[in-house]
């Protein structure tokens, strides 16, 4: 687990911005922290970075405690804030150069990384232009480049698509996915636009009033109704049969020989039959959580 938080609480004056949040993010995944405005996303992120202290609870990021070892965390984590800002009179290159200097990256290496990062986000041609001339979308992409030059293990992006038209947002999300695939970094991104980001997230957590009200794989959460089953000691044949069946929504291998299956309401008896025939142990069989759609209606539009 690259991020682990238990029982996080944060109080601002009389409001509890976070109220018992548990969070676990695995290496290499794209985790979407979703929630309406004011639900505590930014607060969570600031605590993970050691920029704000939690009132209660435990946090570990890359194995370090952000409260006690903020510098160790900041060395490994890249962060793009909600309203990312730059030094307007400096060029895109100079802004990134300042960041590489603060990170103690040697000149030659820094120049190489800045070139690559700007190329990735499509700002190579305007590298020498002052940021004052940049559009909102360009700034957002420069914010991504700013994270990339650090080559972080974990990238934390707070509302990376806010205020951008749907097309630009889709571009940025594709870029994030590609970067994760190529550089192998873990991504934590927050958004209040559930529908927009869900397609690139491996897992999402829905934050409401400071704690998670739902969490899971997008496939699992988007399936209507039905059950979730965990099956141990599953053979490859069982897996193949489950994947072929029309009453399963998704079949994923969580650990070697351990499958997580989401299925329709009517698929329950069939599942039991398959397992009896092919061998395997049903570790868990439970009704599925509310769907994203239901969650959306319940929490995002109230």
């Amino acid at each position, binding site marked *: 687990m690259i991020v682990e938080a238990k029982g996080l609480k944060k109080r601002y004056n009389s409001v509890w911005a976070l109220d018992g949040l548990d969070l676990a993010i695995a290496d290499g995944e794209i985790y979407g922290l979703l929630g309406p405005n004011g639900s505590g996303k930014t607060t969570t992120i600031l605590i993970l970075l050691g920029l704000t202290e939690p009132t209660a609870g435990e946090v570990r990021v890359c194995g370090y405690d952000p409260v006690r070892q903020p*510098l160790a965390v*900041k*060395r490994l984590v890249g*962060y793009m804030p909600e*309203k990312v*800002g*730059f*030094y307007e009179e400096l060029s895109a290159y100079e802004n990134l150069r*300042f*960041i590489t200097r603060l990170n103690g990256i040697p000149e030659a290496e820094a120049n190489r990384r800045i070139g690559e990062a700007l190329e990735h986000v499509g700002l190579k041609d305007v590298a020498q232009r002052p940021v004052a001339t940049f559009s909102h979308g360009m700034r957002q992409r420069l914010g991504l480049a700013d994270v990339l030059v650090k080559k972080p293990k974990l990238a934390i992006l707070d509302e990376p698509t806010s205020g951008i038209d749907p097309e630009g947002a889709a571009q940025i999300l594709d870029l994030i996915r590609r970067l994760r695939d190529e550089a192998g970094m873990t991504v934590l991104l927050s958004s209040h636009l559930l529908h927009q980001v869900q397609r690139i997230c491996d897992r999402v957590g829905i934050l409401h009033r400071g704690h998670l009200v739902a969490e899971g794989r997008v496939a699992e959460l988007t399936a209507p109704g039905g059950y979730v089953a965990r099956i141990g000691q599953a053979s490859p044949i069982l897996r193949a049969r489950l994947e072929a069946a029309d009453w399963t929504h998704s079949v994923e291998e969580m650990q070697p020989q351990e499958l997580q299956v989401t299925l329709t309401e009517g698929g329950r008896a069939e599942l039991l039959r398959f397992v009896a025939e092919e061998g395997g142990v049903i570790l868990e069989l439970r009704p599925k959580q509310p769907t994203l759609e239901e969650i959306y209606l319940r929490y995002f539009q109230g």
Partner: protein
Amino acid sequence: MRVIVWKELADHLGSRRFFILSLIILVVAGTSVYLGIQGFQQNPAAVQEFPYLRLLTTAPGALPSFLSFLAFFGPLLAVLLGFDAVNSEFTRGTVSRVLAQPIYRDAWINGKFLAGLGTLGVVVVSIVLLIFGLGLFALGFPPDGPELARLAVFLVVALIYLGFWLALGILYSVLFRSPASSALAAVATWLFFTLFLYMIAGVVADQVVPVRADSPAEAWLRNENLRNSILRFSPVALFEEATLPILVPTYRGLSLLALLAQPGVPTNPLPLGQSLLVGWPQLVGLLALTSVCFAAAYLGFMRREIRTS
């Protein structure tokens, strides 16, 4: 922290704000020195005693002395270097991005203060070099040892004084969220200490101890003392009192008391150590003000919530 100091230094030295203000200071310095040199030509005897120091303290014609000018105008430069140091980072949204880098939080504000001091140092040193240059050209000889020592001490004191105003500017940039209001507060404070406090001190002193032309010497003395104690609250007055003994070797103190105690004009210069002693309390006061101001800015910044929105 070195990275931060260099960046801020480059920002300052390249900014239009700095360029205009330091240009004004340099032009005034050049003019007053030039006029001072002309004064020497009319009164060659003056050249004998610390001519370079004289260039800084004598008021040529209608202009104020360079020392008064620096005491009055230098703070504006210093305070304007600092007034948006922190809050502009918040309004631009660069705080959280920079503080997410592996640097200590205090390295940032320390770096900003040091860079400001460095910038002011550049200004003060270039003024002194200008005076050297013009003086050398007109007088034909460089300042001697004691004079150089006094100039060096003056540089340090001036830097402490300007450092106070820089720290005050940075403090305002921490206290006020918008650069516009901190600029307003900074300029208001500057006007208060450089102009209003002098007027207020005079008015209060005259109210409490009225004096007329035929008042006894004792009344004049009390009036003067009261005025001076009120002015002690002003860093501007502290600076003038701290530097006068350094730049005017014969100077023995501001109050009438010193003059009354030693009738006749004292002409023999004090050694540098003695001169320093005369202005010592003021110097310590100045240093304390600067430290308190920066400490307040430092603490305010360290405790500040860093979220932008």
